[in-house]
């Protein structure tokens, strides 16, 4: 269970998140929609403490992220403890951020070995299996620059899965891809959704939201404007801003 309560975040005088309350049940897919600059990426980055929240709490399976409560004060965790929490939350970036000097399988095996101290041989076996799962069994020894964009993003997804995360965050996983490559990445995402992976996905792919999401959230100017099952939010939006946004995206 992922719970955000009253999350606020500002950059200087710009208030990017203005009180986000959100609950994500385990095994469900949450899709976040919203115009550019509405704070979607910032929200995801707050969930794994890549950005520090100014106010509010983030809890994953009851555990506070980035802080420790003692009495009624919050103390920021040490970097080492934060890194340990992050190792249980997958993050997939818009532009992949694979490690270019490591092969695909080394990219996947890196974190389990060095962050979770898993045994090497087993981890490599699992890494090969994960690459097979995203359809890249034959690309294990390729370097990222020898792969297409869609293939790179699938390696990045396998890399996130390798940590057996409680939750995976996707920040526009398909928007850096050529249109004909989007499908192969969405297939992997759909497959994960069916397998019961807890996911929060920021995307502009309305079709994906309609099929795979349990909850769709529409954000604007740092607030959640509307949320509910896809049939409700996408087909019968109650808010003007949601309607205006969807009418632009759904041409």
């Amino acid at each position, binding site marked *: 269970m992922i719970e955000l309560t009253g999350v606020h975040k500002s950059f200087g005088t710009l208030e990017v998140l203005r009180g986000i309350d959100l609950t994500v049940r385990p095994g469900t897919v949450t899709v976040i929609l919203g115009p550019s600059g509405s704070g979607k990426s910032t929200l995801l980055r707050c969930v*794994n403490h*890549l950005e520090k929240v100014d106010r509010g709490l983030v809890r994953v399976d009851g555990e506070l992220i980035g802080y420790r409560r003692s009495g009624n004060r919050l103390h920021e965790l040490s*970097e*080492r403890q934060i*890194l*340990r*929490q*992050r*190792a*249980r939350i997958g*993050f997939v*970036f818009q*532009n992949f*951020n*694979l*490690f*270019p*000097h*490591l*092969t695909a399988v080394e990219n996947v095996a*890196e*974190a389990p070995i*060095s*962050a979770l101290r898993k045994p090497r041989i087993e981890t490599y076996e699992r890494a090969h299996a994960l690459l097979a799962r995203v359809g890249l069994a034959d690309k294990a020894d390729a*370097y*990222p*620059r*020898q792969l297409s964009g869609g293939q790179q993003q699938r390696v990045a997804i396998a*890399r996130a899965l390798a*940590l057996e995360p409680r939750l995976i965050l996707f920040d526009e996983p398909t928007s850096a891809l050529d249109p004909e490559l989007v499908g192969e990445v969405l297939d992997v995402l759909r497959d994960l959704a069916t397998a019961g992976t807890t996911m929060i996905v920021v995307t502009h792919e309305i079709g994906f939201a309609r099929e795979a999401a349990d909850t769709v959230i529409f954000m604007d100017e740092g607030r959640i404007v509307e949320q509910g099952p896809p049939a409700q939010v996408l087909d019968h939006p109650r808010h003007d801003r949601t309607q205006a946004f969807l009418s632009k995206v759904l041409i």
Partner: protein
Amino acid sequence: MVPARHPWRWAGTGLVLVLLAQFAHGLTTNPGWDWPTFAGYFLEESVLRALLLTIELTVAGALLGFLGGIPLAAMRLSRNPVLAAVSWTYIWVFRSVPLLVQLLFWANLGYLYDRLQIGVPFGPGWSFSTTSLISSFGAALLGLALHEAAFAGEIIRSGLLSVDQGQHEAAAALGLPRRRQFFRIVLPQAMRAILPNAANLLVNLLKSTSIVYVLAIGELFYQVQVVYGRNGRVVPLLMVATVWYVILTALLSVLQYYVERYFARGALRTLPPTPFQRLRAAIRR
């Protein structure tokens, strides 16, 4: 298929060959070069011993310099303003002072402080006579290493800065431990930017060792000076030193080529073949 013709390439090659032949002719026929003397001293024992000392100074200076450069770069990039300022000041000072001046300064430290003391502040300590602690070899090495460290620090820092922010983020998001983030993810990628500059610095250091002749240390340049001071054959002996410097630099350049290739893994889609691989392929064909 007829490959494109390049008449100007042939004309250029012809011109270069004529000029080279002329130069070679001059080298062999002008008695001023005095090749017999060159040959007599090139592998002479005192010259080889001096060469060894030059190599020692270069290797030790480079090792100490780069070992010093790593913390300097880390300090300048750190969020702690005191550390950043200390590193900035060090680099400012040691890049400003000419190496020659610095060497003379270290050699004359005994004139400023005749005893050096180490120990607990306000507590017990040990004191040494400065001249016994710092030999002229020690002064030379100290000067070279401090000088190198300032430049190495900047080279390493520039390499670290060249690594994409997304790489730091991905490493942090995966929860990799701090040391692992640095040594496994950031540094290998920084090496690509560091290596060409580091090789430059190393070659420069090799030649800078000739400056320590002012401290009467028997390195290569000092030694040939001693010899031509005795026999007056300046040009052939300078050639002895020059050819040795050229050979050492050539070896370093070959080493650089292969080390750079190693760190280019993944950065290029396909590595071009090495000259040897190309030669072998040409012979087989």
